[in-house]
């Protein structure tokens, strides 16, 4: 918001936070990917294509995982604020 350039300390904190934030997103994506593969994909590997049922399961799984992420985020955040 302000135009004032950040100090060295602030900069280090911004970089540190940005790094943790990116690690968090990568881990979220990886956990989501592995979880939805476990829930939706047939493991006998009769073919290397995803079939229609698997594809729609994956789409819904990603959507629901996203909602669970938001729901749990609200619960964790509400610790500081009045419920």
């Amino acid at each position: 918001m302000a135009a004032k350039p950040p100090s060295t300390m602030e900069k280090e904190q911004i970089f540190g936070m940005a790094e943790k934030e990116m690690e968090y997103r990568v881990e979220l994506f990886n956990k989501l990917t592995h979880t939805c593969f476990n829930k939706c994909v047939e493991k006998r590997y009769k073919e290397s294509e995803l079939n229609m049922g698997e594809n729609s399961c994956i789409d819904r799984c990603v959507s629901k995982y996203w909602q669970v992420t938001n729901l749990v985020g609200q619960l964790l955040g509400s610790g500081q604020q009045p419920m």
Partner: protein
Amino acid sequence: MDKSMLGDLDNLPEEDKVRMSTMIDQLQIRDSLRMYNSLVERCFNDCVDSFRRKTLDKQEETCVRRCAEKFLKHSMRVGMRFAELNQGAATQD
């Protein structure tokens, strides 16, 4: 493991203490975010098994809420017991 090292830190100058506390802050941020991710993974796995719709139904949502709350209470209790054991180990020396 090696608790002796923490004693050495008192001898370090002010700037090193700042560096140490920054390191601890960074580890705590990372740990909180990892805990968030693993809590989501756990409660999703335990509560969501049907993929006929793309939104959570009421039952799944209730399950996720309870799972998260229960895990947080569990985690706090483990934290207290863990601290007691750590203290016991420290005073034994």
